[in-house]
């Protein structure tokens, strides 16, 4: 029982990341009709917002390390700690959650710049051309990050208070053995809040209503005199923000490096396809579903029956879903079918 519960939790936390990335990807595709292969790079840029913010908070003075005698070595002491003492240290400790405040404007600006500067010129081009240009853009962004931050992952730890694990089993009156890292639980909750916020925005605001109408039938919305194009920039910025926030909060789970976006990109496209092209609900559902399936496929009991299943489960499910439901789980008729 413990094993099953822990795999479900693990699936939820993996699924939360897949769902958040796929949500932004679908949002851009459903409204703008853009197949954005640079979406993984936006996730990575979000994670690097946490890195940059951490670096800003830890701008340091170099102090000679007297304990090293064979050569001159220097320790770094953050100014924040010098000026504010324990309070300064606490701010540094909370760098990742605080970096959300930094990431929101940065990701919105990046989204606007990307859409205005490049994407808008490709709305009427073929999907193949969109893929080529956005994939190229992803590589450029990666190389810029690599140039400034190097190729190595940069540790961005969670605050001390949530760096351990929660006694989930004891809390629910189950086995004491059932523990789960606090930060991963926080990530699941965070993903739920972001997904709810995006859905609420689209459901309960006039702007959202127009966007949904545009996703359903862009041509008719245009004929009604609504300039949907003007809203595209904002939608793209929201998609970038969702991917960025997913990246910020993922940074304590996986220390960011320039390539982390690419690792998630392929999976996210599979999630979008399984969920149904252009379906926001489908993307979220498929994200969690595939995360949980991947987690269960990693159990030794499953792998003893089908070795290596954990590596291919997502793709197997994608094949089966596309054979049975070619439009994906919640796919709409007419999307990507012209």
């Amino acid at each position, binding site marked *: 029982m413990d094993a099953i519960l822990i795999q479900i939790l693990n699936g939820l936390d993996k699924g939360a990341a897949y769902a958040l990335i796929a949500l932004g990807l679908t949002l851009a595709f459903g409204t703008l009709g853009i197949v954005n292969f640079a979406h993984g790079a936006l996730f990575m840029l979000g994670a690097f917002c946490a890195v940059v913010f951490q670096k800003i908070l830890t701008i340091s003075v170099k102090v000679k390390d007297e304990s090293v005698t*064979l050569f*001159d*070595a220097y320790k770094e002491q953050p100014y924040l700690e010098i000026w504010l003492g324990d309070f300064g240290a606490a701010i540094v400790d909370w760098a990742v959650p605080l970096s959300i405040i930094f990431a929101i404007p940065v990701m919105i600006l990046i989204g606007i710049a990307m859409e205005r500067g490049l994407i808008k010129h490709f709305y009427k081009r073929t999907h193949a051309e969109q893929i080529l240009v956005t994939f190229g853009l992803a590589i450029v962004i990666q190389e810029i990050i690599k140039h400034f931050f190097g190729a190595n992952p940069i540790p961005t730890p969670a605050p001390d208070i949530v760096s351990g694990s929660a006694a989930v089993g004891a809390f629910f009156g189950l086995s004491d053995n059932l523990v789960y890292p606090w930060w991963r639980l926080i990530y699941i909750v965070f993903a739920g809040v972001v997904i709810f916020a995006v859905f609420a925005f689209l459901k309960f605001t006039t702007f959202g209503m127009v966007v949904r109408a545009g996703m359903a039938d862009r041509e008719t919305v245009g004929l009604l005199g609504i300039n949907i194009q003007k809203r595209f920039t904002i939608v793209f910025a929201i998609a970038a923000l969702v991917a960025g926030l997913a990246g910020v909060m993922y940074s304590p789970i996986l220390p960011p490096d320039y390539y982390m976006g690419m690792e998630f990109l392929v999976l996210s496209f599979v999630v979008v396809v399984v969920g149904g092209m252009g379906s926001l609900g489908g993307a979220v559902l498929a994200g969690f579903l595939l995360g949980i399936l*991947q987690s269960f496929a990693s159990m*030794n009991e499953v792998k003893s029956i089908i070795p290596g299943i954990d590596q291919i489960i997502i793709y197997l499910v994608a094949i089966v879903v596309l054979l049975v439901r070619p439009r994906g789980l919640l796919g709409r008729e007419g999307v990507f079918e012209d």
Partner: protein
Amino acid sequence: MKKNDQTPHLDRRGFMKKTAAAGVVASSPMFFMKGAYAAKDFRNDPKDSKTVTLGFNVPQSGAYADEGADELRAYKLAVKHLNGEGDGGMMKTMKPSMLKGNGILGKKVVFSTGDTQTKSDAARASAKRMIEKDGALMISGGSSSGVAIAVQGLCQEMGTIFMAGLTHSNDTTGKDRRRYGFRHFFNTEMSGASLGPVLEKEFGKERSAYHLTADYTWGWSQEGSIKKYTEALGWETKAAVKTPLGAGDFSQYITPVLNSGADVLVLNHYGKDMVNSLTQAVQFGLRDKNINGKDFQIVVPLFSRLMAQGAGENIKGIFGSTNWNWALKDEGSQAFVKSFGAEYGNPPSQAAHTCYVQTLLYANACEMAGTFYPPEVIKALEGFKFDGMGNGATEYRAEDHQCFKDVLVVRGNQNPNSQFDLLEVVQEVPRAQVEYDSKEFGGELGPYEV
């Protein structure tokens, strides 16, 4: 009877002349041999050039990029020292040594670099580029056994000597050994042989181990060696699960450990993978668990200070083995640390150490052979015994091109004295304890001439 029909007569003067001539020939073999080498045509022979090019092929991206960056620092320092710049580092402590600080055989050392990306195909491509386009006479580097074996094979085909960097799989000098490949670094068999007795002393004989293993030649080799030595102690192996190289998130592999009944987790991971898997194992509360009445333990058979730095607090108290540590007090290690620290502000890693030593050993072998002609350089390296390079008396075994020397068992330092004092040397295991028969892992070196 004609005079010339007589039995040849050797008078005293003639005897002296012939003896002197024979003596000159016999006592000056290098003169004649050098001439003979010069006549041999070989790839990238520097001939009359004033420089000789070495190719340094290191991972600048991927799971082992940290090690790669440090390897490159070490190579640059070695080149500097070979050319007579800086304080000379280990060139002053290496014994025996023919290095003079005037390059190699009087030619200034220059180098080109490549990025292996921790991928065999990319590593082969960059090595090939350095040999064919940059004229590299020797290739060195790599931080993965998969890469080392692939590049070593290429170097054998191209007749270029490969001085392996960080590669720990038994296969590199076992079944995949090559005449043109040399490894100074230790291997998984030596890690198992050195760690086994320490693990028995610390954790006892009744333990149940769960392995997470990087799914490529090094991971398989290390898992095999650690299983061999722990099972010999009486430990049970609960499961051995393969994980993809560069998996990033290992949570799906760690969660099954929680309820497996195992009380030891062996992480056959290295570099970024090890940092991630160890950090995540600690986050999942494994070190706080008590299974079968015993405290849960984590073992990292191949340790490095760079990884310890990445894993932070999580590394404290964890056992592993290492090829070399900057805290060693011997003259060679201290000279190297001083030199490297002055240059870069950090002590060198074990990857940096092995790469630096390999570069000096190659240069010295060329000096010993009196030529760059690879078959003669290989012969100079085979069976070469040396000291003063940080691991005590060391020998390049001729049969498999594996260096034999003392191995270190280390533990994550609980009370570090400095920011770099992350590994505590628990035991310097003598060479005799880790030695094995050269035929144990099979393999053929192949020909000298290619």
